[in-house]
């Protein structure tokens, strides 16, 4: 008789690597790949952080820094935006946390296709190298803005219009290939490599967020790929997919008749789902952190799952709210404003459920919890201004002002980064086996949380005053008072402060890796499977001899009558220790999951 071995057990794929190179460089272990992805992403993220500091220096003190000319400024803006959105956030959430958490949280030994997973990382690294190479080519990196709108993106006069833009497009194409390889792996693993008892409706929300975001990514990135290919031909061969007839620097170019708005539609058909490719994993991760540290089950688990799915589906039909001022048919605006406001409904459900999870919880103010609660603040804040901007009539006057910069940095910058920090602090003990320094973590939180408010709150005000974004220097105008410049300088001071304070985080991580106290396998007393591994950090294959068996959902906290205030997913009901006289343990999975 042959025995049935579920895919989660991966018998034929598991060859234990012994050499250093096989273990840590050409590794096929999802945990190592996750850390490779994560550290590469943090590395490019730091570059993007420095770029934002340079931008703020120019904006806060125009004319003071001779080494920043307008071209440099636009190159900083472009590279900052592109790196943060794609190469940091997307890569860190999906390549980093997706890789680390999916197999561990669903009880598998590894991803279904470990080799493809390894290729995915190396393609990602290649895309980062190509991107960074553009700093060193003639003309420097592209300065077309992170949206790379043609015709200006590929015309002379825009910084980096020669090699910079080509390397950018190439790098994006390679990134998409890397993402597709990783993404196929994540969805297949979630669908087919779950351990015994792990139904879809028992999965932690982190996996749900990553899973749906991956599907979004698989179907949204092709739009960027298509536009990158066509723009490359416009640039290199002189086709006119997007290029209208243009007179550039006195000469008529060969292009004619192309449609720049077509590019914008393609770009934002990718670009808006991209917001949720970043946001959905953040929603998932923060749900797990909140529930664990509030010692309470997540409020409305099923609703949370369906909200993730609904947001994912809706995110494909809101893209043109980025284009109200593009010159597209104004009637489109009505439709897209409508869908945009509808997407606020499932999003608001999630926010209410997070708050209700905290309600009457036994909250432990740990460092990850601080960041998770910080996220609720920043996300509500950024979300509310999104409702302003989703309406065409409000968006038109505000679209080219700092109000938009403030909005998307609150909702798409600060909020996911808050979750990233929450998640890094939360899972650091599992990933490294060491505990971080709590005091430094708290200093990092308060500096980041208050600091980012000091940056972005005044920006809303500047935007309402009419201070335009994308400008190298505002100069003197009739409608912007002198005092606005003072505010701008203050924003720069806050930005530099927040930037420097991130060194506390980097120091904390490196110091704790080397000298931190040894962490317990389950320091937060959490229920999900990754905290129940026999070793910390988990060894190759994750689970030792036998895969865990799952009996319930991941949110069994503070169950009445149970001795401990949490019941891990893999403890059989009959082994749950009860308080004297409390009777038998009743599995709430039947009720909730």
């Amino acid at each position: 008789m042959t025995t049935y071995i579920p895919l989660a057990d991966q018998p034929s794929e598991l060859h234990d690597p012994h050499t250093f190179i096989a273990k840590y460089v050409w590794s096929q272990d999802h945990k190592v790949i996750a850390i490779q992805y994560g550290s590469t992403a943090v590395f490019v993220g730091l570059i993007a952080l420095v770029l934002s500091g340079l931008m703020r220096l120019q904006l806060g003190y125009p004319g003071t820094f001779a080494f920043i000319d307008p071209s440099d400024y636009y190159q900083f803006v472009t590279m900052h935006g592109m790196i943060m959105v794609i190469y940091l956030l997307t890569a860190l959430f999906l390549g980093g946390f997706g890789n680390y958490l999916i197999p561990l949280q669903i009880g598998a030994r590894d991803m279904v296709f470990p080799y493809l997973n390894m290729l995915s990382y190396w393609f990602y690294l290649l895309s980062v190298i190509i991107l960074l190479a553009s700093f060193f080519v003639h003309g420097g990196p592209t300065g077309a803005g992170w949206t790379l709108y043609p015709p200006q993106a590929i015309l002379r006069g825009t910084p980096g219009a020669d090699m910079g833009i080509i390397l950018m497009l190439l790098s994006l194409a390679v990134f998409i290939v890397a993402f597709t390889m990783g993404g196929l792996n994540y969805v297949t693993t979630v669908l087919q490599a779950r351990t015994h008892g792990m139904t879809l409706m028992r999965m932690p929300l982190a996996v749900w967020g990553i899973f749906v975001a991956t599907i979004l990514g698989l179907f949204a990135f092709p739009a960027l790929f298509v536009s990158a290919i066509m723009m490359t031909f416009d640039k290199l061969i002189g086709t006119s997919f997007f290029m209208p007839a243009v007179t550039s620097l006195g000469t008529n170019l060969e292009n004619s008749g192309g449609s720049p708005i077509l590019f914008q539609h393609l770009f934002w058909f990718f670009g808006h789902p991209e917001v949720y490719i970043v946001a959905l994993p953040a929603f998932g991760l923060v749900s797990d952190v909140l529930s664990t540290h509030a010692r309470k089950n997540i409020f409305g688990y099923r609703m949370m799952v369906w909200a993730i799915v609904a947001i994912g589906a809706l995110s494909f039909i809101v893209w043109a709210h980025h284009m109200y001022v593009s010159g597209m048919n104004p009637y489109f605006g009505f439709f897209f404003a409508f869908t945009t406001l509808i997407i606020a409904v499932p999003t608001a459900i999630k926010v209410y459920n997070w708050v209700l999870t905290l309600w009457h919880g036994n909250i432990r103010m740990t460092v990850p919890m601080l960041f998770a609660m910080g996220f609720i603040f920043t996300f509500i804040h950024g979300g509310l201004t999104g409702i302003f901007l989703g309406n065409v009539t409000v968006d038109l006057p505000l679209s080219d002002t700092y109000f938009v910069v403030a909005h998307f940095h609150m909702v798409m910058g600060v909020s996911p980064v808050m979750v990233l920090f929450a998640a890094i602090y939360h899972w650091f003990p599992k990933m490294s086996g060491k505990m971080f320094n709590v005091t430094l973590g708290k200093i990092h939180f308060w500096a980041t949380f208050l600091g980012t408010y000091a940056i972005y709150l005044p920006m809303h005000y500047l935007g309402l005053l009419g201070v335009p974004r994308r400008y190298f220097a505002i100069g003197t105008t009739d409608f912007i008072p002198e005092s606005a410049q003072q505010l701008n300088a203050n924003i720069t001071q806050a930005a530099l402060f927040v930037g420097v304070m991130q060194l506390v985080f980097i120091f904390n991580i490196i110091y704790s890796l080397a000298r931190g106290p040894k962490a317990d396998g389950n320091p937060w007393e959490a229920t999900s499977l990754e905290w129940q591994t026999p070793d910390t950090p988990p060894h190759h294959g994750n689970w030792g001899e036998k895969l865990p068996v799952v009996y319930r959902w991941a949110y069994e906290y503070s169950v009445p009558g149970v001795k401990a205030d949490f019941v891990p997913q893999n403890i059989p009901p009959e082994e749950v220790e009860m308080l004297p006289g409390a009777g038998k343990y009743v599995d709430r999975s039947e009720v909730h999951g």
Partner: protein
Amino acid sequence: MNPLRALFEKPWQRTPQTADGLSVEHSQALEHPPQKTALMFFLGVVGVLFGLFITAYFVRMELDDWRPMPESQLLWINTVLLFFGSVVLQWTHSRLKHGEASSVKAGLLLGGLLTLGFVYGQFAAWQDMRAAGYYMYNNPANSFFYVLTGIHALHMLGGLWVWTRAGIRVWSGTAPEKVGLAVELCAVYWHFLLLVWLVLFALLSYT
């Protein structure tokens, strides 16, 4: 594969259909081997990719400077080649499924050669067009012709890479049953790309 059923299947359980005579090979033990699931998602990705190209085609077509290209007769021959490539791979797959491994070498070889013929034919069609003065940058219709056929041919080459690997395994003595999955995946991928090609061909011919 029914996507909804895939969502609700319990991957840790043996599915009733495969309960008897189960192979130990884990990927065979599931009703849907993971490679098949991944391929389905990949076909979705490829479908979106071409769907967006086609959307862009329709948008761009409406603008004034669009001059349709003449149709190349070669494309008809290529279509026939790809059609039979797809049919032969399907035939090979169904023979394997019924335990007749004898024809796997011939089937794989013929299917691949027909496809190579298709790719070469597309390349030849490019040469014809260039010789007739229809360069890529002359007109957006030309640009789309080269881009669409080029991207499609690249996807075909990707399939041929998998085909080559399966071929190497068969010729180096792997039991034909063990390449059954690879042959099946090739057949599915070929059908899909044939379908994509038929849509593209119709688009290029009638607009």
